[in-house]
């Protein structure tokens, strides 16, 4: 109990750090995921191949290795002297984008074929079909897996703490190094993560209810 009260500022900073990096990489993952999913169903072979390669590579790489790439290789290519937060955000965002892409792609395939056929028959182009007809309808089926992916992202953000990004795991480590009982810290940190994951699933349940349409 005392650990929490004595180090409330640290816990707060860690909590906010976890929230910040989760939110930032969620945005990256969402934007890239939709884009790459579009690539993967497009009529243009090189883009399809790029999308497939992207998903295969990122899904089969351990997140820790991606963090190493972000911290040792990326600064040599771009972003010299970027903060650990930006690099960590990049690694988490790219990693999660492959899962978002797959969720959206399977969502696209659940939209009834007639919808896309009707869109084509009134003369919409591929981008218009996808943007105006298919993706909005796919959103509903994509929401539940998306919420699970974001919960996984929240948990994965702990790895960023090991790479000197300010967040909950980093502070748990710090306090444990100071000699506080790990079991107590563990419970408080677990509670903080539960708070975030419950919030995410709550938001998504709300979204599902608002967007839910009887088919």
């Amino acid at each position: 109990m005392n650990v929490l009260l004595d180090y409330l500022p640290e816990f707060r900073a860690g909590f906010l750090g976890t929230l910040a990096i989760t939110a930032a990489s969620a945005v990256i993952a969402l934007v890239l995921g939709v884009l790459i999913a579009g690539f993967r169903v497009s009529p243009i072979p090189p883009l399809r191949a790029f999308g497939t390669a992207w998903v295969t590579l990122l899904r089969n790489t351990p997140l820790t290795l991606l963090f190493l790439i972000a911290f040792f290789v990326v600064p040599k290519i771009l972003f010299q002297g970027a903060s650990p937060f930006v690099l960590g955000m990049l690694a988490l965002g790219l990693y999660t984008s492959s899962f978002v892409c797959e969720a959206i792609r399977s969502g696209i395939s659940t939209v009834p074929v007639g919808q896309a056929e009707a869109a084509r028959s009134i003369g919409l182009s591929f981008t218009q079909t996808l943007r105006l007809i298919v993706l909005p309808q796919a959103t509903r089926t994509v929401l539940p897996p998306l919420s699970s992916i974001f919960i996984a992202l929240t948990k994965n953000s702990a790895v960023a703490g090991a790479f000197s990004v300010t967040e909950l795991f980093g502070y748990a480590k710090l306090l444990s190094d100071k000699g506080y009982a790990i079991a107590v810290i563990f419970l408080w940190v677990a509670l903080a993560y539960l708070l975030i994951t419950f919030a995410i699933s709550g938001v998504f349940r709300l979204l599902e209810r608002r967007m839910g349409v009887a088919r």
Partner: protein
Amino acid sequence: MSGASVLYDVPGPKAKVRNRIYSVLGALAVLALIGFIVLRLSANGDFDPARWDIFNYAGVRNSIRDGVLATLQVFAIAAVLSLAVGVLLAVARLSDHRPVRWLATGFIELFRSIPLLITIYAIWVLLLNNRTELGLSDNQPQFWALVIGLTVYNGSVQAEVLRAGILSVPKGQREAAYALGMRKTQVMTTVLIPQAVRAMLPTIISQLVVTLKDTSLGYIITYEELLYSTRLLAGNTTVGGENPYVQVIIVTGAIYIAMCLALSALANWIERRGRRAKTGIGVVEAGDVGNAGALTAAVAAEAAADTTADTAN
């Protein structure tokens, strides 16, 4: 192409020309991206043959081999233990005794909701503090922290997968088994679990891929698995005054991707084989757990949606 072709018409002469132009542009853009990365890296001298020469030394090769072996060792033990724990937890969660059910549910939900890294770290600190009492030496605390952490987390996930599988077995199977006079244990072990495992095998293997990937968390608690030993190697070697991080990371990444792809390929093969078979209940799609079309039970679909998340871990 079957899914994609719905989204656009069969291209006519004009569209064909347009698509070809876009193809060229797209290919150029992808090539430009790769070219840019290669250029920047070679400007840093990362494609200098001298830096790649390190892989010709026996010492470097040995430490990579030791790393791979350490990773596989942790993976093998954690995989077996997590499957055993998974079966136990799944059965416990479906138990008729309320306290057992509650305990199993609490365990599963707790360890699934906490980041695996934090679990592993907490176990590591606990083991380090009690290392003399437990008789652990050298790197054994790291090893066991990694194995136990992976076991409790993946065991919880496997339990949920198995539970979904058990619930997806048609009710008639259980009723018929009871009608034959089988006991509860017999029904579970000889009728329900075999069918559940068969239906869920692709998902179980996908989760094993996750277990394999997560062994890399040993890097953070300084266990000498593949990632840690290669990182150490790159840190200790200098070629022309610089550490060969890029080269070592590329090689390590290739090894990891090869190992994971091999396991994923196994899952896909089993899934395809299972779909060919006409008997028994359907086999779920590998990797894409959210689309468990073969499973009819609503609970199974819900649990499967949950596991998508964990596969994303």
